[in-house]
């Protein structure tokens, strides 16, 4: 449950989905018996469109699905993967659950934070990196495991992390 991690911010512009996102939403709605059931998939479309979900985007989702905005807020704050504020271009998600913990995940986070000059839940000034700690991501046999946006990188150590960060900094 994520309610302590983020808060919904009053930020962002009024949000209308671009046409291709609306086309995806139309397709999604056909797969479910109720509009409400499409909430998670539509929120994913919103996040993929804008990188995070602003209050305005959440309200647009509520309007499309005929849901009270408060219901959408309740759902948004329950699930940890919805970004309720902007995140860096590369969202570094380091697993610290048991097998990764035994594999040295905390050392990896410390190293990463020092390298980038940020703490957990913080974003670098150039907007390239955000560092977060996540619970088990099912990469336990390749501990410590981490994800950058939607890709797994595992197993990681200080050396492979440095190389990855350098590549990502160059590319973004």
């Amino acid at each position, binding site marked *: *449950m*994520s*309610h302590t991690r983020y808060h919904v911010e009053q930020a962002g512009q009024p949000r209308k989905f671009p046409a291709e996102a609306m086309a995806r939403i139309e397709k999604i709605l056909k*797969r*479910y*018996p*109720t509009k*409400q*059931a*499409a*909430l*998670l*998939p539509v*929120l*994913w479309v919103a996040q993929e469109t804008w990188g995070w979900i602003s209050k305005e985007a959440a309200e647009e989702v509520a309007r499309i*699905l005929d*849901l009270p905005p408060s*219901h959408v807020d*309740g*759902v948004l704050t*329950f*699930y*940890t*993967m*919805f970004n309720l504020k902007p995140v860096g271009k590369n969202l570094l998600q380091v697993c*610290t*659950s*048991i*097998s990764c*913990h*035994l594999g040295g995940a905390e050392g990896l986070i410390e190293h990463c934070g020092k390298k980038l000059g940020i703490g957990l839940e913080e974003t670098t000034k150039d907007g390239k990196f955000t560092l977060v700690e*996540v*619970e*088990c*991501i*099912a*990469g*336990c*046999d*390749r*501990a410590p495991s981490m*994800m950058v946006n*939607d*890709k*797994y990188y595992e197993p990681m150590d200080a050396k492979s992390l440095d190389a990855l960060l350098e590549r990502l900094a160059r590319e973004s």
Partner: protein
Amino acid sequence: MEKVLTRRVGQPNSRSIETYVADGGYAGLRKVLASMTPDQVTEEVKKANVRGRGGAGFSAGVKWGFLPKDTKGKPIYLLCNADESEPGTFKDRLLMENDPHQLLEGMAIASYAIRCRTAYIYIRGEFYDGARILEKAVAEAYAKGFLGEKILGSDFSLDITVHRGAGAYICGEETGLIESIEGKRGQPRIKPPFPAVSGAFACPTIVNNVETLCCVKQVIDRGADWFMKLGRNEKNAGPKLYCISGQVQRPGVYEAAMGLPLKDLIFGADYAQGMKGGRKVKAVIPGGASAPMLTAAEIEDCPLDFDGVAAKGSMLGSAAIIVIDEDTCIVNVAQNLSKFFSHESCGQCTPCREGTPWLYKVLTRIEQGEGRMEDIDLLARICNQMANGMTICVFADAAIAPPLSSVTKFRQEYEYHVTHKRCMVGARAQLVTA
């Protein structure tokens, strides 16, 4: 044992429908549509006693049997539980990323048996790759006529949709999953009614785990008798995927007949090949974070099946075996596991919402050398007030397993921590924090 569930893992193009069909794929679906009634399929799965691979170990066929005979016009839903979030578990990820059609065929066979025509795969949000692979496989299966209207010329039609979660462990609990797929917070429901009577969208619903559905396909291909012979006895049978992680030489997913001795998995040449650095085993968590720890003495002669691990006072759960070596501080392990449960409690029931962070707080205090001797009994007392029917779902029962089992079995380490204000073993044993 010949590999069954993972036989295509590692093969080139193992995800494509061509590879799958060339290897005999969808023959099981063809067979049930041509020659079996839905009830015959259910009977075969019931006879094989396919016990749920997600954690509870409940017979899938019996679960299907709870569906009402007359649904009063309501549709029946099949939800594949691909939320795989139990710390230490990574078998379903392997199955979905490498062999998605095996799961789709299992779902099609199960749907035919339970008379479902709309099914969903609820896959955890982090599995972007898994979801993309499954979506591609679903599209291939529609194109080849294995999904959609009038499958293979029969009267059976089925739609499958891949539905992504968004980061919430509790959505692996079947009624939490149902709430989530309805577009709500994934907070478990009070039972009864059980999902088979009233589940998703207030309709009869079956929730089965990925590996369970893959087993269903194997039962249809090879027969219940084959399935029942793999294992110690007929109640604990079939091919099984074991996830082993922690301080072993070769962590990974290993397939074996149900009942593989735990020590073989840890030390066997075909499996994890022993401990890292030749250190000794201190403790083993045999079934994911929710399972009580076993001591080195308890892992002697422990068959990894539902009843074998239960006889040791723990559970097979999702068959996630986490091995902890002698140089690791058990208080630190319990603290880490408590952090997980404290983070993941859905917040619905007071004993769990308040109890999980309390446990984490007390464990942190002890771990940091600020504990009091009475904290050790306090941990046990909190645990006893959280579980055994105090809450809607079994999350709280899971959350108390690490502290309660470690306090009971490794009490001297807790006492050492309080008295010496540092770990008894490992690198930090030398650090004086006082």
